[in-house]
């Protein structure tokens, strides 16, 4: 009874409201036009003097996206350092007599933070204590190995994001793809090496695609919000896989009571990339191929153009003759396939001794941060994936060497994304100039609103 009036108003205003906002947005354009005109005038003026042009270039660099990304990383690392400092025992002891001998505190702070970052670097890039170069470089291969699923899943989130969809379902898609690939891996026997591997790869990627496709289909057919659907599908996948794993005869390793699968046989494993000495496997190459393919799809193909068009403005895309429902379903299929690749490389390359329901290792959620840090473009995702892979590798080394829990990596990663998503905040902290020139594509809306305000 209580909700009749407001439901009615919701019913009638739903569509009209959106149109209203659209309409009002258009009417703010005078403000935008004015800002642009001022800008153009400023740019013309700038061209007169060589000196000013350099200043302008510099201003553009520090007001651009890269400066914000760098600032965000710096802020997050500072926050991480603070966490290390306040929990470090030596610092706590020294700070007890801070006012008598402050130098002790600073020394302890330096030691705690320095030790942590040195461990992080040595765990992620190059281990100076190793005897040979081959052993010293091992952390870097571990970083790339960690980056493999992050890149693949990050691409899956990024491509959906470009089409205006938020794919929170990485976890579920990875679990289903891992289940399918794993099942083909240990369930099918007697196939020779490359065929078995390819079969498992395809099965896993298909499973991921279909699982994400459910979300796409529901979104296209019923308008169900993809975020809610993908979150729910995560849990459905988790319990489905748990059931498979706990049931003898389905996926549980024979003769075991643990919810764990049998190991992946050699014939279905991704071979090591740099020889048996390193863990890095061919999955990394697959991830690089995926980067190239996604770049091609987004920038060179008609399908990719329709994705981007739908992402920028679904109504305009529909008017232009793009089938929005179809592109929603197809982009979710592609996104699921990419996340599926992440699940597959885990099962067939990284964890070949049998896996449990935690095979996704939080990568589905990390992928969201990777995609955001990479600004949803494939090259950016590659870089962000490697950076987060390095954090992961270095974080474990830091935990082992300095006793700093690896969860600090989660904190730093999430802070990076939080800051990157709010450029005005980062600019305010570092007193960077607000963007004056052409606003970047992704931030144009925010910039427009600021211009209007």
């Amino acid at each position, binding site marked *: 009874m209580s909700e009749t009036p407001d*439901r009615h108003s919701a019913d009638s205003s739903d569509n009209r*409201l959106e149109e209203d906002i659209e309409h009002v947005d258009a009417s703010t354009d005078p403000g935008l036009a004015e800002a642009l005109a001022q800008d153009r005038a400023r740019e013309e003026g700038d061209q007169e003097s060589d000196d000013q042009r350099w200043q302008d270039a510099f201003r553009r660099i520090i007001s651009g996206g890269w400066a914000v990304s760098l600032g965000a990383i710096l802020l997050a690392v500072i926050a991480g350092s603070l966490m290390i400092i306040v*929990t470090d025992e030596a610092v706590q002891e020294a700070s007890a007599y801070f006012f008598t001998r402050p130098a002790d505190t600073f020394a302890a702070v330096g030691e705690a933070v320095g030790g942590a970052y040195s461990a992080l670097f040595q765990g992620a890039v190059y281990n100076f204590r190793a005897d040979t170069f081959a052993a010293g470089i091992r952390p870097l291969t571990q970083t790339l190995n960690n980056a493999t699923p992050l890149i693949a899943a990050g691409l899956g989130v990024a491509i959906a994001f470009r089409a205006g969809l938020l794919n929170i379902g990485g976890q579920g898609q990875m679990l289903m793809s891992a289940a399918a690939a794993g099942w083909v891996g240990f369930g099918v026997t007697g196939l020779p090496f490359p065929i078995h591997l390819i079969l498992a790869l395809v099965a896993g990627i298909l499973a991921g695609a279909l699982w994400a496709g459910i979300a796409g289909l529901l979104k296209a057919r*019923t308008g169900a919000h993809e975020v809610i659907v993908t979150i729910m599908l995560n849990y459905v996948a988790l319990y489905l896989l748990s059931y498979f794993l*706990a049931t003898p005869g389905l996926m549980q390793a024979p003769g075991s009571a643990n919810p764990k699968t049998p190991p992946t046989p050699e014939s279905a494993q991704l071979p090591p990339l740099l020889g048996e000495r390193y863990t890095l496997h061919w999955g990394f190459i697959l991830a690089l191929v995926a980067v190239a393919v996604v770049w091609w799809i987004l920038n060179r193909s008609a399908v990719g153009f329709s994705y981007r068009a739908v992402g920028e403005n679904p109504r305009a895309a529909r008017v232009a003759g793009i089938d929005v429902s179809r592109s929603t379903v197809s982009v979710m299929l592609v996104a699921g396939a990419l996340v599926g690749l992440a699940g597959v490389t885990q099962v067939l390359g990284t964890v070949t001794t049998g896996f449990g329901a935690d095979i996704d290792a939080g990568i589905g959620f990390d992928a969201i941060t990777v995609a955001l840090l990479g600004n949803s473009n494939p090259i950016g995702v590659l870089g962000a994936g490697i950076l987060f892979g390095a954090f992961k590798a270095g974080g474990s080394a830091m935990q082992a060497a300095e006793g700093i829990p690896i969860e600090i990596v989660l904190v730093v990663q999430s802070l990076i994304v939080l800051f990157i998503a709010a450029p005005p905040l980062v600019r305010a902290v570092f007193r960077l100039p607000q963007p004056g020139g052409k606003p970047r594509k992704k931030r144009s809306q925010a910039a427009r609103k600021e211009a209007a305000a």
Partner: protein
Amino acid sequence: MSAPTVDGAPTGTSDAPRTVTTVSWKTSIALAVVLALYALLLLLAPREGSARFSLSTPTDFFQLPVYVLPGMATAWVCAAVAAALLVVSVVATRAQRRTPLWATGVYAAALLVGFLAWAAAGSPRDLSVVGLLGGAIALSVPLVYGSLSGVIGERSGTINIAIESQLLAGAFTAAVAGSLTNSPWVGLLAAMIAAALVGLVLAVFTITYRVNQIIVGVVLNVLVIGLTSFFYSLVLVPNTETLNSTTRFEQIPIPFLERIPVVGPVLFDQTIVVYLMPVVVFLVWYGLFRTRWGLRLRAVGEHPRAADTVGIEVLRTRYRALLIAGAVGGMGGAFYTVVSINQFGREMTAGAGFIALAAMIFGKWNPVRAALAGLLFGFATNLQNVLSVVGSPVPSQFMLMLPYVVTLFAVAGLVGRSRPPAALATPYTKE
């Protein structure tokens, strides 16, 4: 399934002629499908023996016997009752009336009893009805508070994916504050403040900096998991005695009422956090639908520009809504460490925030319905616990999956259409 589901909302749509109220067949179809599945289950997996239901606890006024029912016979009788109610629903729909609520209620109860009789058949142990219902209430506490937090936030126009992090932050802070002061009340208060702070962060980023609300929510979840786990292993674990062992709220049995069989131990022998639950549900409902504050809040969530035009401070209203929502969510978080057990554990909320989110959607953004959905999901979770005790044939994973599947159907419009507030997820900029 395709034609009637899309636009057959039970209230008349604007396209229909004015006098006609469209009554959809959706309810009848849903009842028929569920009954068919249930009958299929009975046919394909018949079970021997009888089921034992125990209803009494030793302190009741009078003792009820342990009822021993023949499993399959009871199950089929219940199926017959449900079939009769299905007929009632079909007749009502044909007469252009809605399926009466009592019919749906009795239908659900009949199938539940039948299912329990089937599942517990042949088990030597008693199926404790008190344990089933009492446990369900306990498990649903964080879900109900969490879903209320979601309702308040989303009615004001901000998607709150961060319920999970509010619960976790609340649990952590309640553990620390409660242990330091030895007072569960301080723990509860601290949990509310901590979760409100999470809400504040959400507000700053989504309202002031206009960042995508879902992204902020997801990131906040990761951030709070990271922070709590970090400080848990570095600070709480070495100092368990001083920082991580709380005094819990005592159970407060209500005199006389607590000795009524079944109802007493389930409803009237609980802690203060549980007693507060219906009060908070009522307050949120009253606040949202009967006060000026609620009207403004909903206006801001439906059509912020119109609200702004008549002089409502949109941003301030949204900020305030998220802070209050956070505080309510924190009460649910406190449940983990000052009611349920007396310690914080790494990631101890284990996805309850997402079930709360599901409950909010299933409850169609209405506090009362969301709370009922929370109870239902809590019941489903506890049903799985109880059935594993009596040794049921249903894999526990499928019971645990239930809330999420139900929500999937709900958002897809198969079980009543869930419509979010119109201005959800859109940041507002004053002209």
